[in-house]
């Protein structure tokens, strides 16, 4: 039956989504098959490498043994010396601190601190950090070493073809021409490694230790404890309870906020798009104004507005009511709803601008045709505008969903520092990210915080990976060339 259906143009969105999910097992299988094929090829590749090492010309072999030697043998003195210097620097680093750091990474220290005897003891966490750093530096060193072998081989081939050995100046010039991409990427890659990847790896390790303020205070050493942190989060008890309560609220919050922000922005954009609206630029300026004010200022302003002596309570009292604590310890839902609306105030302008951009791309002929066919404005909206906008913004929508899921600012500013009954160091408005902050920064439960961040990451990865890889900015990058 289904095979006989013929569509003009693309199949409807529902069908496409269905097909997408139906193909998941197949893609899964393909993925593992390709992994299997790669594994099968490993012995052969090892053989290839072995043969290459055996048959390599002399300078290349020399470079394999000692970095830079091959270059020196081929009369590239400056280059050879530079490579040798890098090698020497690495050896010095490893002898002085690196080797010990690597060893300490596994033991996490053996000497507990003892203030009575004046022993400073081992700082396990610093050891872990420096150990990780040592591994990353070794990785870089291996990369440089491989580059050195490749360079020796290349020079050898170049000379074998009857050319003159390139001198240092020419080598430098090639770094800015043929290998410009390497030169350009060195700084960004090193920066990202040290300030993004190293901390993330460190946090992942941390999730499997028992590092917390108490351990530090009691003077014990940090040790590896496997999955205990995760077990604690998923267990029955205060901790597990808190985790599931917060997770549930976090999901609800992300869905509700994304929906409100998205459709609110779309509604304002459509309103401004109406033909009868004069002075569109002036009307649009108001949301843009809200968009431009730094977020923390608005959040603090709203906190003042709803504070005990703030204007909202002033008017409530003027009207004969009694003042309310909007962000007090018992005000679960009022705080949640105010947070929801404040977040909408902050985010609707950006989704309005987004929707305006998308609507400008919409072909007006479609509406013309629909009007001649006698479609009401509502039908036009449901059948033309909405599918187009939703389809065009799916990746952005996912991004907004994740942004709301990890929305740290709103409840940190509006209702920070409150701990509710039945929650472990958290309040009933806190999202996972606020809990993570409260645990690791305010209360020094570092390893638990790390475990939570891994869980957040897994949720984020599941939601966005599949969608993102399918998005055109990734898969159709050459479209406009």
């Amino acid at each position: 039956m289904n095979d006989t259906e013929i569509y003009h143009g693309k199949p409807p969105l529902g069908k496409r989504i269905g097909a997408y999910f139906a193909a998941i097992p197949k893609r899964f299988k393909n993925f593992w098959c390709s992994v299997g094929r790669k594994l099968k090829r490993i012995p052969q590749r090892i053989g290839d490498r072995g043969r290459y090492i055996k048959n390599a010309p002399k300078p290349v072999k020399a470079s394999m043994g000692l970095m830079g030697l091959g270059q020196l043998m081929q009369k590239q003195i400056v280059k050879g010396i530079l490579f040798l210097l890098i090698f020497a620097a690495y050896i010095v680093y490893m002898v002085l601190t690196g080797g010990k750091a690597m060893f300490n990474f596994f033991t996490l220290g053996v000497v507990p601190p003892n203030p009575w005897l004046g022993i400073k003891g081992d700082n396990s966490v610093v050891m872990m950090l420096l150990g990780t750093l040592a591994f990353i530096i070794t990785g870089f060193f291996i990369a440089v070493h491989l580059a050195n072998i490749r360079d020796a081989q290349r020079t050898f081939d170049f000379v074998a073809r009857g050319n003159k050995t390139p001198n240092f100046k020419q080598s430098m010039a090639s770094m800015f021409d043929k290998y410009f991409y390497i030169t350009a990427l060195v700084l960004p890659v090193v920066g990202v490694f040290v300030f993004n990847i190293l901390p993330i790896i460190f946090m992942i390790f941390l999730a499997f230790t028992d590092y917390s303020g108490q351990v530090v205070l009691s003077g014990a050493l940090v040790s590896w404890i496997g999955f205990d942190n995760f077990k604690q989060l998923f267990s029955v008890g205060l901790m597990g309870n808190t985790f599931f309560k917060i997770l549930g609220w976090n999901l609800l919050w992300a869905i509700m906020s994304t929906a409100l922000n998205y459709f609110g922005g779309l509604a304002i954009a459509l309103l401004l798009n109406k033909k009868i609206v004069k002075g569109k630029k002036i009307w649009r300026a108001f949301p843009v104004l809200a968009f431009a004010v730094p977020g923390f200022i608005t959040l603090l302003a709203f906190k003042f507005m709803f504070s005990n002596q703030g204007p909202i309570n002033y008017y409530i009292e003027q009207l004969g009511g009694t003042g309310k604590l909007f962000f007090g310890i018992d005000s679960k839902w009022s705080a949640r709803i105010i947070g929801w609306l404040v977040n909408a105030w902050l985010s609707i302008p950006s989704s309005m601008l987004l929707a305006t951009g998308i609507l400008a791309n919409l072909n007006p002929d479609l509406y013309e045709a629909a009007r001649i066919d006698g479609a009401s404005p509502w039908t036009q909206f449901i059948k033309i505008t909405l599918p187009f906008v939703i389809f065009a913004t799916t990746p952005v929508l996912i991004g907004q969903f994740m942004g709301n899921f990890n929305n740290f600012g709103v409840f940190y500013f509006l209702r920070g520092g409150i701990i509710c009954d039945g929650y472990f160091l958290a309040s009933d408005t806190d999202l996972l990210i606020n809990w993570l902050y409260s645990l690791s920064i305010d209360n020094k439960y570092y390893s638990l915080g790390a475990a939570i961040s891994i869980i957040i990451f897994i949720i984020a990865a599941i939601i966005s990976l599949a969608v993102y890889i399918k998005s055109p900015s990734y898969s159709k990058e050459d479209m406009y060339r």
Partner: protein
Amino acid sequence: MKISKADKIINKQIKKSRVGRKVTPKKCADYFFTYLALIVIAVIFAFPVLWLILASFSESGSMYTFKGFFPSSYSTETFKKLFTDIEMYNYPRWFGNTLIIAVASAVLGSLLVILTAYVMSRFRFGSRKGIMKTTMVLGMFPSFMAMTAVYLLMTQFNMVDNLWGLVLIYSAGAPMGYLTQKGFFDTISNSMYEAARIDGASNFKVFIRITLPIAMPMIVYTLITSFTWPWSDFILPKLLLKNKDLYTVAVGLMSLGDTEFARFAAGSVFIAVPIIILYFCLVKYMVNGLTAGAVKE
């Protein structure tokens, strides 16, 4: 003579358009509700901002003297106090710190982002797809999940309570957000580069002489977005700056309570104004940045 179906429809349309020119009750209602909604939206979005501006001109600083949203009396005293009464709250100092951090990280960060984006867009090399996937996965980690680690790392490098430590973190993390810029470079045709290459220019020269001038609007956009981020960030400075003299404006304003409300308002107005002007000049680019992930047809 029979009237065809198409003619009938056209007649109907003509009739309709004639009716449309008259002021019908329906149309009146449409006007009324549209403009009512617009006014409500404008008030909702403008009101908190206006309130802050109003509050910054209040004579007494404390929130308790306010009559609802309105200060009991007005003066420009608070702005003067902001810059002269610096015993407790050294606003000029905070402002200077923020400016140093934001300008330095904008310049360094933009350089790294533009380089990364250009290379990723223009060159095809072995580890390219690998790098793209890695950055994508890394982007999924909550941005301050690694805060503890960054903090420990900075203590090791002796960079806590150091403005340049923040600059280092902001600019080193900047290349992670290269996708918008890469999208821009993807739209530039290859032929221009090829022509320069045939004329014997090295890739470095092509980058300096051709890419940078073409990418000027994108560079401006990058500079400004990487300026606004440190300008309004509060998490990292809060974590890494413990010394009161090194506070940024965000951390400083966060430390103000109910009784210093007017000071908070004045300080906020003062740092929000440049950003607002920038945004209004660049709203077009901002939309492009926002729609970078969306389907373009």
